[in-house]
């Protein structure tokens, strides 16, 4: 990454995939050394999953390099890379809030290596390794549809729309696991206000990046790209709804949806579109990606609901990440425990049908 960004080469002539970043080059030596161990390297693959994780956290490596490391006798190489190419960047000037005070946070390592982000592969460990070519800067979001005036906003300006806050939210995945994540972001409501939707805006549609060059997952048709999510206007302006730009006080790692993603803690995680490039205000309920993929399994609302089971997963309980092998499950709460803030929006709606 560092090399790619600082390079004086004209980026339009050279595909990022053609350049060998210095890390990769340097580490070929290490790789060869590692390969020399032969059996040792083989057993490293068999007996450690951390190599992948470490390679992942390091950032700034190409997909190929990530794989290389994953397969080599990792720790030495991976640590070195984590040190050299660390792209973790602190966010200055955000305020702490009372949201989620007292909750036990999931570990940074877990939050950043266990991701559902199919644009970077369908395995949970894939995004951390495969998202390293992705560039979250420069970035603009276009605003379209039922607004006074269609416009765009750069990520830098977005960061100034409202004061950044840290909010600790529980995240419940439709697959039956959960985390507690300290997000940094701004209320989507302030963004909506700035966007000036017209009276025709009943829903908001969020469209994610779909760049086949830096997002290897979109080259395969597992989902109908680009990833599209949506909210009703009242959901979008609910004070809980967050446009997240960071976690743990740092800008979002690529695998967590950099540079900007949605977080609605009372909904299943897949509602939170990542790497948002377009926000469209519309009159009709948008057809979202997972609804398209399996209308009997995924609904538009996707509110966390322990009483409505998914055909694949039990929703009445969940497995908190970080509990280890013997941590067991906990009961899932209605609206993931955020009923007080959101239940009134769904009064009169049959949640069994509108799942």
């Amino acid at each position, binding site marked *: 990454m560092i090399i790619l960004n600082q390079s004086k080469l004209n980026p339009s002539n050279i595909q990022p995939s053609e350049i060998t970043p210095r890390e990769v080059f340097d580490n070929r030596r290490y790789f060869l050394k590692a390969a020399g161990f032969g059996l040792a390297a083989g057993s490293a693959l068999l*007996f450690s999953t951390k190599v992948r994780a470490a390679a992942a956290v390091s950032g700034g490596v190409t997909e190929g390099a990530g794989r290389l490391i994953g397969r080599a006798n990792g720790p030495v190489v991976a640590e070195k890379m984590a040190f050299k190419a660390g792209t973790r960047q602190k966010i200055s000037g955000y305020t702490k809030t009372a949201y989620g005070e007292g909750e036990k946070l999931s570990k940074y390592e877990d939050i950043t290596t266990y991701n559902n982000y199919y644009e970077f592969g369908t395995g*949970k460990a894939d995004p951390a390794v495969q998202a390293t070519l992705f560039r979250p800067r420069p970035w603009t979001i276009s605003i379209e549809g039922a607004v006074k005036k269609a416009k765009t906003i750069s990520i830098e300006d977005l960061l100034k729309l409202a004061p950044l806050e840290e909010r600790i939210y529980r995240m419940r995945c439709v697959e039956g696991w959960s985390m507690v994540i300290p997000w940094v972001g701004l209320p989507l409501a302030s963004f909506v206000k700035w966007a000036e939707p017209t009276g025709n805006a009943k829903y908001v549609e969020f469209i994610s990046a779909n760049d086949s060059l830096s997002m290897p997952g979109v080259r395969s048709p597992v989902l109908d790209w680009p990833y599209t999510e949506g909210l009703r206007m009242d959901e979008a302006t609910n004070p809980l709804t967050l446009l997240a730009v960071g976690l743990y006080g740092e800008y979002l790692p690529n695998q967590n949806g950099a540079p900007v993603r949605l977080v609605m803690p009372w909904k299943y995680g897949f509602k939170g579109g990542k790497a948002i490039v377009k926000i469209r205000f519309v009159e009709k309920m948008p057809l979202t990606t997972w609804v398209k993929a399996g209308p009997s399994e995924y609904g538009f609302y996707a509110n966390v609901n322990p009483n409505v089971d998914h055909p*694949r997963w*039990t929703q009445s309980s969940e497995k908190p990440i970080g509990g280890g092998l013997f*941590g067991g499950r906990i009961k899932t709460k209605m609206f993931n425990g955020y009923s007080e803030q959101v239940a009134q929006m769904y009064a009169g709606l049959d949640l069994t049908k509108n799942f």
Partner: protein
Amino acid sequence: MAIKKQHIVFIKAAIWLLALLPLARLVWLGTHDDLSANPVEFVERSTGTWTLVFLLITLSMTPIRLLTGIVWQVQLRRMLGLWMFFYVCLHISTYVWLDYSFLWADIVKDIIKHPYVIVGFSAFLLTIPLAATSNSYMIKRLKTNWKKLHQLVYVIAILAILHFWWLVKKDVTEPFYYAAVLFVLLGIRLYYRYLHTKPAIKMRPTNAEMQTHQAK
């Protein structure tokens, strides 16, 4: 290809050690806090995968014989099948203990409500009689019924693939590969059966296998 009895003993010992490797790996990763962010899922998937792998290896002994005429590996079939049973026991223990902490009401609900779990559970139930009769005493006692009973392995294999297919959220690549292997293995048997019109599939223990039992 003739192979001596002591070679078979050696090969069986080697399989023993190799077959324990997946478990050793899990123990190693577990004691080094290296089972990913979701260790229960990791163990559940690993043991499930190895159950299926042993099942497919078991099912490939006869096709190898049909294709190559080499017969000695057929003696390994029963042992490989028992290793599959070993891993499915670990798999379901992970589910009942680590995943569901023995909450029987939740387990029953999960099994009956979710097609992929029903199918996996049925496959597991069917493996019990096979494992229970995988000894020379039962082979002798059941005679031709043994062969019939052990044809259940095909049903188990198909249920196992369905289990895998239905549990993945969207990306069926991995279950597809396993399904393709099963398809080829069953295809070879059917082709040979068709060639000989009369049933050519030998489910009964081979003579060599019987001899090893008697020697014990």
